[in-house]
């Protein structure tokens, strides 16, 4: 893994590198090369100046040159870059990461310390307004959960975190596959079934295309036909000025890098967080504990199903084969974990009847806790009970739970009182 660590404060670079190394080693280690890019010798400021002039070139129709940010798997940027010796407005990770993404061959961008919040109770995505692929606190770099999917169930590992070890590899594959697909409809490329467009929430549609109107009967059709390239022209995330986007729309390499990141972000925020179009295994079990059949009383069986990657994922084989197998969306480069088409699963009357065939009382009192990515039982020390909160979403499945680990900040806290 090749990492570029950027900070405007020289003394912070080794500290952050240490944190990163600690997390990397704790999750299995392997080759890791960290390059530090700081204020010394005007290195970071120079790199940014060169990046901005590349941006001007690209918008003006000239071929942009190579950048300092090229060829890294991971670019980690401190959000506050206000001490940099650069003319004009002060910079933050947010003001530069759109152009780093568009103009460099680096794969995944992480912003550090934009907020004091550890866990996002509102949208279940982290920092919902950040333009980085992931926005975290620097202390999170040292947690093994950031670098792997597996969870111990006791340590902080938000369910919405991607696996940073795998993410750059997945991004590489996304980019390769998009090369021949820029003018193809997004939804069918992502293997969404034909009727999925009509099941998307208003927010999911608006993020994909602010121009699609609701509630118009044709909106499903418009979304169904929306291509990656037209998304690029309409979407204002990485490159905010419409004139810049229009100027760059013919540059396939730029369009691909931008849409790969943004569509993945869309999937995380609008599809995976609400769990209303696709449902992953833990949330499926939350709704249908009887799928574990005789395994339902055992907490270990619930958690085995969470991390399982092969069918039938620890679920009852008959129920899986008869009712779920056909609605499976296997994990891939866009959505790493296996998921199921929830509207189809929910419409299966026989499966709904199974609620009554298999008494729920045999299932343990377990809650999927989003802050540790694991099912947790009620009881134990002080009869601990997971804290319930209501995420901000139109989905009927907005009631969620967290263990609420000490010394971590959960916000906004009014979600606990809704």
């Amino acid at each position, binding site marked *: 893994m090749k990492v570029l660590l950027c900070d405007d404060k020289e003394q912070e670079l080794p*500290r952050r590198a240490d944190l990163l190394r600690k997390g990397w080693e704790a999750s299995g280690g392997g080759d890791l090369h960290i390059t530090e890019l700081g204020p010394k010798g005007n290195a970071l400021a120079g790199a940014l100046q060169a990046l901005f002039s590349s941006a001007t070139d690209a918008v003006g129709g000239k071929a942009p040159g190579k950048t300092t940010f090229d060829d890294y798997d991971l670019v980690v940027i401190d959000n506050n870059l206000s001490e940099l010796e650069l003319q004009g407005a002060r910079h933050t990770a947010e003001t530069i990461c759109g152009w780093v993404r568009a103009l460099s061959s680096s794969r995944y961008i992480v912003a550090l*310390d934009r907020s*004091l*919040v550890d866990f996002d109770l*509102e949208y279940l995505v982290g920092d919902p307004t950040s333009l980085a692929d992931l926005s975290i606190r*620097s*202390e999170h770099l040292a947690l093994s959960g950031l670098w792997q999917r597996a969870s111990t169930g006791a340590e902080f590992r938000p369910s919405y975190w991607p696996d940073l070890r795998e993410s750059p590899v997945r991004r590489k594959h996304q980019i390769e596959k998009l090369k021949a697909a820029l003018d193809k409809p997004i939804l069918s490329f992502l293997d969404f079934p034909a009727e999925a467009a009509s099941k998307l929430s208003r927010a999911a549609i*608006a993020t994909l295309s*602010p*121009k*699609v*109107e609701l509630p*118009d*009967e*044709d909106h499903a059709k*418009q979304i169904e036909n929306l291509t990656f390239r037209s998304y690029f022209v*309409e979407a*204002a995330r990485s490159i*905010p000025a*419409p004139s810049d986007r229009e100027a760059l729309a013919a540059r396939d390499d730029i369009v691909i890098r931008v849409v790969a990141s943004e569509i993945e972000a869309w999937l995380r925020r609008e599809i995976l967080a609400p769990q209303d179009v696709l449902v992953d295994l833990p949330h499926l079990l939350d709704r249908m504990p009887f799928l574990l059949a005789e395994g339902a009383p055992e907490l270990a069986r619930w958690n085995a199903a969470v991390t399982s990657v092969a069918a039938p994922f620890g679920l009852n084989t008959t129920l899986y084969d008869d009712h779920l197998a056909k609605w499976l969306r296997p994990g891939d480069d866009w959505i790493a974990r296996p998921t199921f088409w929830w509207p189809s699963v929910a419409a299966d009357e026989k499966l709904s009847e199974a609620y009554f065939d298999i008494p729920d009382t045999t299932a343990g009192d377990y809650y999927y806790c989003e802050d540790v990515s694991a099912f947790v039982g009620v009881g134990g020390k002080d009869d601990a009970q997971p804290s319930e909160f209501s995420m*901000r979403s139109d989905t009927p499945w907005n009631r969620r739970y967290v263990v609420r680990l*000490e*010394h971590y*900040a959960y*916000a*906004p*806290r*009014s*979600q*606990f*009182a*809704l």
Partner: protein
Amino acid sequence: MKTIKFSVDASLLQELGERLIGQPHIALAEMVKNSYDADATVCTLTFASDSIEIVDNGHGMAFDDFKRFWMRVGTTHKVDERRSRKYKRPFTGSKGLGRLAAQFLADEMTIETRPVDARGIEANLNWAKVARGRDLISVEVPWSPLAQSATFADGSKVGTRIVLRRLKGEWTSTELRALGNELWRLRSPFGRETQVGSRDPGFSIEVDAPEVADARKTFDAGLERVFSNWRARITGSIESGMTERVATVSVEFKAGYGASRAQTFSQSFKLPLRGGKIVNLDKVKFQILVFNLKGRQTAGLQVGELREYLEEYGNVALYDGGFRLPYYGSGRNDVTGQDWLGLAADQGRRITVSELLPAKLRVADRYMLDLPAPGRIFGAVEVDTGHERQAGEANARAPGSWLEIQPGRDRLRDNPAFQQLRDFVRYSVDFYANRYRYRTESQAELMRDKEPPSAKQNRALETIQRHAAQMPPVVFKTITREVSEAVDASRRQEENLDRRAALLAPLASAGMLALSLNHELVRESRILNQLARAIRELSQSFEDERLAKLAEQLTDVRHRLRSIQDVFGPLLEDRDLQAGERLKVRAVVLELTRAMRPLLPGVEFLVSKDEDDLRFPLGSLAEWNAIIQNALTNAWDAMLSSQERKVHFLLAQKGRQASLTVSDTGVGLGVGIDEANRRFFEPFEREMKTDAGRRSIAFGGQGLGLSIVRMIATRRSAEVAFVDPLDGYSTSLQISWRS
């Protein structure tokens, strides 16, 4: 067993009409709605002394349709089909009421109708001849094929004409006004339009009633009252743009919209807006009305009705030589044309500063957030491509660079002239947003600058004294006394306010500083963490337990710092500052006690488990937090010398009355409950004195806590008062509200 069939009395139709319709204007409106539902673009109503003719250019009916739908009572095809065949209009007519309406209005009816690709028919119905007691199915309706020469509204070969004769009631301006109010929602504000493609060109209703004075005006009043509700009017024009390069925009605000007084802002500027010197536009004129879709509307219009109407017809339309180009600002079918000014897109992006306005118009705040949505405006832009071509040629512009219609004839070619036009119109809307924000900000300034009431009253007193000679002495004396008392009372109130402000202002600044320091604490906390880690590593290398303990202590300090940050939590998150929902009382209390616990060591918190689902009135987490935080710090100060330190939160609901009672085991109020309630919620009133030895660990002490508590509670329709203490406690403060 033998069977017997139901029969239906013919008079049932009459009875149904009277029961279901009831009023003549509703009956006639039903018949017009049928035209709308049949995709007619025009429906003409002609009122004569004893007849009404309703003609449209809708689908018309073939004999089979007539038989199936018109001649069968209770046919409900409209329930099954939700939208009209051609323009997909949502159905407006009620189930089969049109037929009943005809009978309700008149004794005789003639219907002529012809669909596309089939022969038309003509039928006569004479209700007077349908005798009571006769079975409905035996009533015969004579019909014949329609003459080839018959035409319908607008000279159309298809459509329906219904003539009602021997009317049952008189049609005066009262009925016409009621009819107008019933039908305005269906009417396109653009009048009659040319039709392009399958797009709905709108529906217009024409009224001809020579015997009723001002018939047309009376009927149109229903539609006009919609437009009388505008709050701001944007106008713009360019005259001889290719030579003079000057454009003018003007925004007129009605009184009460953004600020209390009416105001007009105008501006002239040079084109083009995005630099360069070549202007490809010559003559443009437009007007855009901005509506406020919240609150009361004038002329008895419901805000929901206005919203729906503007959703359908709102936005900015474009006319070329008087003909509307349906692509722009039209309906919901064409998204790009719908948002041709980019208003919806920019609203979605939440842009804050205009790309087009000059920097000198910068108002302090983010004015573009006041950009009106397309569904809140109604406007028309007028150009003339014929004139533009002539002007372009005369001014040696490159062919194709002036405004031109595209071959499809529904839109303009996207060329430099069109881009300049779009920028010009958009500039005016941005100018509106900018001036609206300026008005709201000036209004706020104005309120602040108001002179205090005592000064005004004093002036009144001086005036009275100047005119003492003209007044009877008793009157002068009485008025002088009354006004002097008012001046004194106002002064006392102002002094109180001043004292409060004198304390609140530095406290608020300190609060803001505390919030920003909170961010700094993170850095300090990181350093502590680094130190703790380094010392822990040293303790392992040297195997020294003392170092390990030191590291542990540092970690504890760090965690304590984190808890202090937590207390500020609700002030740092937008969502926690917004009053969007009714929050659960128990969850709010648990949140706060969790955050405050490290600051109130040794205090036992008890939260009742009853009424788990009880909710506060609408209010933000920050507000409820402030109330409970104040109650808790008071409790802490009161318990400093107590052996037992307990705070109890009791949630209760009796009928619709809900309450949260916070009780503590402190020293008590020191005065009776009535006196405490009378005095302690006033600013700077406090009874409890913290002894000198414990003052350093007490919170607050400014005497403002409870007045802040009451201020917030009152704003949220809650009451706050001391009540008889719960058993085992010395003070109980209760917040109550209607749930």
